[in-house]
């Protein structure tokens, strides 16, 4: 049994300790916004937060996630209204949309670490793969969200 805190809720799951966190989130907890893309932490579709840091959950054992605050796309904001989600709508970022939960979670972790990221910081943090090629809009939307969050705080 593992005690997990996911999106602010305490849950317990009965799974072997080496099961990737991704499948616990998707199948045991029923949160399907987090996607499977590669299984080897190469594409980022499965990105979630552990205490605000981006983690690729497809290659992260559930046993290492206990005692941490886990956040998935469903818990990023109460009404899908995080500054990034708003900017994603404003810039019409998604195409097929499959990688976008992971993109948003990576971007949220970036903005937490660097509220006004430079181009180089965005380039370095955003290594998620998108086959539709939404990258230019991802970049623009991250900048827009950073700007909106800065204005909000001021």
């Amino acid at each position: 049994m593992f005690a997990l805190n996911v999106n602010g809720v305490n849950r317990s799951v009965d799974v072997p300790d080496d099961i990737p966190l991704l499948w616990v989130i998707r199948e045991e907890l029923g949160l399907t916004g987090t996607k499977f893309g590669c299984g080897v932490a190469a594409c980022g579709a499965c990105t979630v937060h552990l205490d605000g840091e981006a983690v690729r959950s497809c290659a992260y054992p559930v046993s290492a996630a206990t005692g941490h605050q886990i956040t998935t796309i469903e818990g990023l904001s109460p009404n899908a209204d995080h500054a990034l989600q708003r900017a994603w709508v404003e810039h019409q970022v998604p195409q097929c949309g499959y990688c976008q939960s992971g993109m948003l979670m990576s971007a949220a972790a970036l903005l937490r670490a660097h509220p006004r990221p430079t181009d180089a910081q965005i380039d370095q943090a955003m290594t998620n793969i998108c086959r539709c090629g939404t990258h230019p809009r991802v970049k623009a939307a991250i900048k827009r969200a950073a700007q909106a969050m800065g204005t909000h705080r001021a």
Partner: protein
Amino acid sequence: MPSLSDPANPKRRRLVQASAALWGGMLVGVEMSANAARLVGAAQTKPDAGAVELTAWVRITPEREVALVVSQAELGQGISTTLPAILADELGADWADVRLLTAPLRQEYRHPKYQWMFTGNSESIQSFYDVMRNMGAAAREMLTLAACQTWRADVADCRTENSYVRHVPTERRIHFADLAGAAALLPVPQAPILRPAAELRLIGRPLPRVDVPDKVSGRAVFGIDFAVPGMLVAAVRTVPAIGAQVTSFDATAAKAMPGVRAVLPLPNGVAVVAQRYWQAARALATIRIDFAQTEASRSADSAVIEAGYARVMNDGPWAPVLAEGVFAGKPAFEAIYASPFAAHATMEPMNCVASVTAERCEVWAPTQGQDLAALALQYALGMAPERISVNRTPYIGGGFGRRLLPDFVVQAALISKAVGAPVKLMWDREEDMRRDFYRPASALRLVAHTDGHGLPTAVLAQLISPTILLPVFPPIQKTLDEKGFDPSALEGLLELPYKVAGRRVEFHLPKLSVPTSVMRTTGYGPNLFALESFIDELAHRAHRDPLAMRRQLLAHDPHALHVLDRLAVLSRWAQPLTKGYARGLAFANAFGTLIGMVAEVHVKASTVRVMRVTAVADSGQVLDPGIARAGIEGGIVFGMAYCKSEVRFEQGRVLQDNFSTYVMPYLAECPEMVIEFVSSERTLGGVGEVSPVTLPPALANAVFRASGQRVRSMPLSRHGLSFA
């Protein structure tokens, strides 16, 4: 209209027969397992209770919404916004009231020309624009007539807007929902009158995509997220080499593992069915599959295939495709270009939910090809078509042609049948990339005769390519057998945009054991990489500016000239660059769209930084400028992927079977993009596949001008180059 069972439709009949022959023969049954689960409950499709159906496309719901049917698969290309918007505009529905329904497999939703339900070839807008206009107008006329019967008014005095019919002289109005019952009793007008362009409010404007909110909240239900009651999950592992045969496997340990309900032998591997995917995957990992190489697996080898292509380049034989004009004198220049195998690698790996009983087969698939899936199921299960339902999941994690094929749908159905329960089949990334139908490797020799100014007067094209069309369009077998060429592989070579008097095109169709099929750009991509590089080489040899030379070759086409002229301005073509930086140009007439592209690069040692890509496109009228722009942008990155990675084979093994080895472009490598649409009275063209066509040649031409290194094959890594 001809129907599924209508033998009077010869086009459709040929498709059905040939598809059955091809896919029916390739499908081998799954053996029944003793360890079978029990079917708990059948899945229900979305209820639509109380809704009034005006036509196959338009329903009015009890919630006073206008529900429109989306025939085409939403793969990210925005079609679920653009097509319904055309219909809603013509109808006079308030866009905020519109609700969208994913189409079931039904006659009305078939491609009007082929009578076949599929999404691909950049054809959705071109093929369904008139259908949407007409069906919107038909429903508008029905609602208007119903209102006039109530008012005893003249239809000429009425208009529809914001989901109301309005009687203009008296300013009375009735909501569509209050007219639907009466309107549904009226005949559907066969030749409704379309609105004048001035009345259109949605067409031509950038609309917010209907699918974006679900895609940023995580709520979008993709195939992998789809579930039905009592569903089990299957993980599969097939032999790690194409064409190899399973000799044995030991599943003793797997069968005893928690949650495992069945271990099934597949024709070329094994499936584990469990309560959860993680249980199935864990059990699958304990099974070692022993296999034997075959002639097919040994020949699925990049070195063998390349040697075969080289032999053909020397010795032929060539099938004649086209011969016209005069080839005078000696050839001035010749070059051979090559494009590699590529994997679709959709972000969502193949998956499918299937529920098969003795009486019925129902599947929910992230598919682009509903008709082909239904037909393949019919033959695989030996079941009558009316017992089979092929539902499309509302969201699909990319397609690029891969999901036109029915192999994963059939595999899911056979596993469900074997275990006697609904099953969700999920491939992992390795399975997805090893069991792809790849974009074929091709080689194209171009030979030019030139005039005194270096302009081509005659061009010979000799193309080697395995089939593209056969798996998705089985009737093409006849053409392959009798004529020896695949029309899709020839795209871009027969209808040159340039004026060249002498033309010869020859084809060699190798039969490979590597499965090949359509992938975004089909034949246009590899052929125009070659042709546009070749034109650039001719310009260089003649000391001509590549843009000026293309202008001269396109002097007969004012639309093409306009595209090039805008491109020259936006790309700052004439503005000099410092050493190591250069611009390269490519032009194409593909998928009904004219596109000109300039890539500006910085080549430093072995790295290529793509600084800026400028694209100018003429696709006739642009129905949604925002969505069209996103398609061009995304296609530029897709084109860069063709320049970055390839799939290679060794004794049947697929050497690149995950994103760690099949490396896709990263955000850091993406250029600044400048995109403009020039609208014209040309007929509607597709925009989903044109920019990945022009990116590789524009890039190769820029690399040459920056470094002097001529890249005649992709990816860049073959030349010691990589993106920065």
